């Protein structure tokens, strides 16, 4: 267990260091989601009530598309010089790599959300009418739902010829229940239509089920040729 923790931490630190030096993923994600927010704000001219109804969908779709950029980047880095083979021949557990990659993506997407959510609120003149604190569990559980499956499917599509296309094709359909929960919970909180508790529990269940499945299957994916 200590080995799993220490290897996870070492891999996470290494990934953050590499991202800090290249800034490949964070720059593309920021510019992409900024563009989405600006274009949508010019395309629609909603009043405050309409904004509350559609904002949840817009912001989560923007984050989902932006997350795909980060997800592709993290694994692409492991293909250069075949460094993934160095991990595969080592005695390090496969799940340490998966958890580190998922945590790294979670940190990146959370950073993006922390920067973009206030901008979104300003552009769409939003103020939550429901319990605003519920946005925190929605953001945490929703982001984990995106990155845990995204990390898994990005690893799965790593050796395919058109992996950039393959990832959204695999990820988006399986993310529908999570995205629906995130969008509905955000809409309820912004519009003050009651409690988002049901959707938060649904997100939690989704996270538990898919995290367990990904951990159980990742070694097979890693050792596949």
């Amino acid at each position, binding site marked *: 267990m200590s080995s799993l923790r220490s*290897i996870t931490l070492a891999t996470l630190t*290494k990934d953050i260091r*590499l991202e800090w030096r290249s800034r490949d993923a964070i720059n593309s994600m920021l510019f992409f989601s900024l563009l989405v927010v600006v274009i949508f704000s010019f395309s629609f001219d909603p009043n405050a009530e309409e904004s509350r109804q559609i904002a949840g969908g817009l912001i989560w779709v923007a984050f989902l598309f932006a997350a795909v950029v980060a997800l592709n980047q993290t694994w692409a880095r492991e293909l250069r*010089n075949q460094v993934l083979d160095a991990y595969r*021949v*080592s005695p*390090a557990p496969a799940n340490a790599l998966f958890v580190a990659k998922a945590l790294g993506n979670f940190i990146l997407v959370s950073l993006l959300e922390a920067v973009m959510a206030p901008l979104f609120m300003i552009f769409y003149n939003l103020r939550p009418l429901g319990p605003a604190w519920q946005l925190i569990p929605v953001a945490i559980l929703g982001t984990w739902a995106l990155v845990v499956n995204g990390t898994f499917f990005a690893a799965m599509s790593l050796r395919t010829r058109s992996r950039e296309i393959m990832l959204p094709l695999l990820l988006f359909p399986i993310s529908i229940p999570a995205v629906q929960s995130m969008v509905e919970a955000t809409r309820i909180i912004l519009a003050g239509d009651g409690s988002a508790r049901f959707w938060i529990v649904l997100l939690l269940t989704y996270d538990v089920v898919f995290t367990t499945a990904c951990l159980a299957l990742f070694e097979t994916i890693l050792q596949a040729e």
Partner: protein
Amino acid sequence: MLHRVSCLTVSEVKIPHIVPVIAIAVSNVVKQFGRFAALRGVSAEFDAGKFHVILGDNGAGKTTLLRALAGLAQPTSGTISILGRSPREACREIGYMAHPSLLYDEMSGLENLRYCARLYDIAGDGRCEQVIRSVGLEPELARPVGQYSQGMRQRMSLARAIFHDPRILLLDEPFSNVDVHSAREIVGLLKEMRDAGKTIFVVTHQASLLENVADEFVRMQAGQIVERTSGLIPNQAEAQ
């Protein structure tokens, strides 16, 4: 093949203590990629503590055999035994150097080795620095590996393969894109490691570099081992 090396006496009963001298046993290994068979029933035993050189034309199956020994390519059929275990179980005993460097270009040599050390549960920088010096590089070099010359990169790649002190070394083209002087230094280092009891496998097209060092030359053709000799015979050298 087992070799009797000593006897232990317990309560007047002599119990033979035996140590295997076969480092690697490959039995009827076939590796197929779709309809193409890269290995076609390879069977061989390789002695421990020897320097084996694998030769052959492009597409002969040399790299596939090395990857199968390293546990990176699962044989379609047949078995591989490394020190009596499967390649995956024996991974701590294997050092693998591939044709690509297996290093992160954005990190320095020491940072790369530090990360690898964590994967093998080796603590501290001491061992990493010692290994970097042993391949003729400076651990203090802060430049990222991406800015190294090809020769330096090959040396660092070798350092990554040997830093956990494996008993078996699998090296794929360690002399490619390396000048003659650096190649001779690498050969010297490998010779020292063989003399220290390591079993070494080198896939190369520059067999003449290893003529006076290697214990065995293994020639592969069309996915099979076709010849094993203790010295480099002229047509082998010319073929390379």
